[in-house]
């Protein structure tokens, strides 16, 4: 790809980008693409959450997987950082803990590509418990 250095270069590349993206039809339908959110709190950053996020970005491009990678604030799983929430199209979000590059690779190959769950899921039970308590 051509080197870009100024906003003008970016402007020139926009149309190419747009046509590529239209083929993949992800822009207006975020629910049709894999969504990955990396928790970027102090403890997450210290545990390497940025490396994990960079890994997802470059690997998903390399492996040509239609996905959107964003960061988010504290998910309050300090004990399991870096934590990553993955939402496959049409599925509930699943949170995985201790996601280093090796784990991220496993997640891409098993969960994102084939929908097979892997070790390290952080159960969302506590939310259900809270909701139950509220009902009582």
């Amino acid at each position: 790809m051509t080197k870009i250095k100024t906003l003008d270069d970016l402007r020139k590349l926009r149309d190419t980008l747009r046509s590529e993206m239209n083929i993949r039809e992800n822009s207006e339908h975020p629910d049709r693409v894999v969504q990955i959110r990396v928790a970027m709190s102090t403890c997450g950053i210290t545990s390497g959450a940025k490396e994990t996020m960079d890994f997802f970005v470059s690997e998903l491009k390399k492996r040509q997987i239609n996905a959107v990678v964003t960061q988010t604030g504290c998910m309050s799983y300090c004990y399991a950082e870096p934590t990553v929430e993955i939402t496959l199209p049409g599925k509930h979000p699943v949170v995985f803990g201790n996601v280093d590059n090796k784990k991220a690779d496993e997640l891409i190959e098993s969960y994102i590509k084939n929908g097979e769950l892997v070790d390290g899921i952080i159960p969302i039970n506590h939310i259900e418990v809270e909701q139950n308590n509220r009902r009582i």
Partner: protein
Amino acid sequence: MKELSLHILDIMENSVSGGASRIEVNITINEADDLLAIQVTDNGRGMDIETLANVTDPFFTTRTTRKIGMGISLLKQQAEQTGGEFTIKSELGKGTEVDALFGLNNIDRQPLGDIAGVIVNMATSYSAIDFVLNISASEGTFHLSSKEVREILDEVPMNSPEVILMLKELIQTNMTDLKIVN
């Protein structure tokens, strides 16, 4: 945290939690005076005097999920151990300004790290916020606003991996041209 860019990332996350719509990162490299200045300003909701007084205390946080907040105290420690200083100013309803001054060539100064990466990751993750990066060095200056980038990209989504990598490259190329060493 092993790089200053990660501290900047952490401070910017605070600004996001503070409801900012514009977050500015200013990096000034002054070889003549052997100084590196990092400033993060936001137009978030700011802090009251009591909060501000406690903010560099690691056992203080406004978060309710746990009782400690290390981010700011870690950056303060990093600045002070290079002979620099750390100040934080804030006004309720107006915003917050964090200033960290480092001894540029001090052996204890952490490397800048992946500045491009943290700015782009922030800008692509929080689409409603305008992230502004200003770098000033003896070779010249560099300015980038995520709002401008978003306008140029039009409907091309900024958070797709292609665009993220491209924007990182844009910042990195410019930083290399300004001869900014880590």
